[in-house]
C-alpha cells in the first residue's frame, strides 16, 4: 500500500478541506481519467483496492497513473477508551482530495474498457466521481 517513506512528525492536526482543486485537475498523462466531485479523505487501502479493480478489468496492456498519494496520517483511539489522555495512534494514511482532482488516469486501452475499469474503481473509493477524457 502507498505510504510515505519518512515523515517529520507522527501525527497531524486535522485541518479543514474546503474549496476546489487548483492543481491536478486536468489530464496530464493518459487519455481517460477519473475526477473527484467531492472533498474526501481517501485511504491507502481504498487506493489499492481501486488499483486492483482497474487492473482486473484491463487485464493486460494499458498504463495506469495514480495521481494522488496518501501522505496524511489518520489517528484513532482504541475501542472502549475514555476521552482524554492525548491523541490516538496513527492507524492509516489518507490522501486529502478536493473536488476537481484527477484520481486515476489510463492510457493504451479502448475507451469503453477504460470507462468500465474506472467505474469499477470508483466503487472502491466512496467518493462521487466522473470519467473525463482528453480530447484533441
Amino acid at each position, binding site marked *: 500500500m502507498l505510504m510515505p517513506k519518512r515523515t517529520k512528525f507522527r501525527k497531524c492536526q486535522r485541518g479543514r478541506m474546503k474549496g476546489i482543486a487548483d492543481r491536478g485537475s486536468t489530464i496530464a498523462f493518459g487519455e481517460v481519467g477519473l475526477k473527484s466531485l467531492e472533498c474526501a479523505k481517501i485511504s491507502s487501502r481504498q487506493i489499492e483496492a481501486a488499483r486492483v479493480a482497474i487492473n482486473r478489468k484491463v487485464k493486460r496492456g494499458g498504463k495506469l497513473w495514480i495521481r494522488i498519494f496518501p501522505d496524511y496520517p489518520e489517528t484513532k483511539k482504541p475501542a472502549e477508551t475514555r476521552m482524554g489522555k492525548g491523541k490516538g495512534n496513527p492507524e492509516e494514511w489518507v490522501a486529502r482530495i478536493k473536488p*476537481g482532482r484527477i484520481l486515476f488516469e489510463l492510457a493504451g486501452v479502448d475507451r469503453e474498457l477504460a470507462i468500465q475499469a474506472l467505474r469499477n474503481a470508483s466503487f472502491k473509493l466512496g467518493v462521487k466521481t466522473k470519467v473525463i477524457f482528453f480530447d484533441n
Partner: protein
Amino acid sequence: MEGKILNAEVRNEFGKNDCIRLRKAGYIPVVLYSHGQSESLKVKKKDFLNLFEKSVSESVIFDLKVSEQSGNSGQMAFVKEYQVDPVSGEILHLDLFKVTQDEKIHTHVHIEFIGSPKGVKLGGVLEINERMIEVECLPRDLPNKIEVDVTELMIGDSIHARELKLGDTIQLYSNPESVIVSVHVIKAAKTPTAGEEGAESVEIVGGKESSESSESEK
C-alpha cells in the same frame, strides 16, 4: 480561418461579482490584447461553443467582430489562454490575442495520431508523451492540427519533435529532442507487499516527537 466568425460585445462590467453575473446571463468574459494594449469584451457562450465544438484550440484563427465599435471590425484573433472550472469543466474566461497578417505568431498546435502501430499488435503499448507542440509561423500558415502517422512504429520505436513534417513556413519552438510518441512493452507492475503495514512503520525524521519517543524508550 475558413470563415470562422466570433461575435463579441464591449464589456463594461469588471470584477468578480460582475463576471459571475455575466456567466449566469450566458456570456464568457474575454480580454483581447496585443502589443501592450488590451480591451475587455464578452462573447456569448453558445457562439463560442459552436466555434469550438470538441475542445478549445490555440491554433484556430477566427474573425472577431466587435459590436459597438466603429471602424475596427474584422480583426483576427486566436485563443491564447482559457480558464476552466475544475469541477464542471465550464469555460470561465478567455484570453484572445489579436493577430495581424504579416506578423509571426507563437502558439501551440494539437498533434493528431493516425493509425494503429504495428508494435501494438505485437503486445506493445502506444504511449503519447506530447499532445501539442509549440510553433512559430505567420497566421496564414498556421495549421489546425499536425497529423502524425504511427502505423510503422514497432516496439521500442519513437517519434521525436524534430522528425515532424512541419514544412518550411513553420518553425518548431518545442525541444527538438523531446519524444512525441513511443511504443514500448509495459513492465509488470510491482505488487505491493502483502504484509499489513500500519501507519506506525514509517520512519520519522527530525521533529520534536522523535526525540520524545526516544526519551520514553529509555
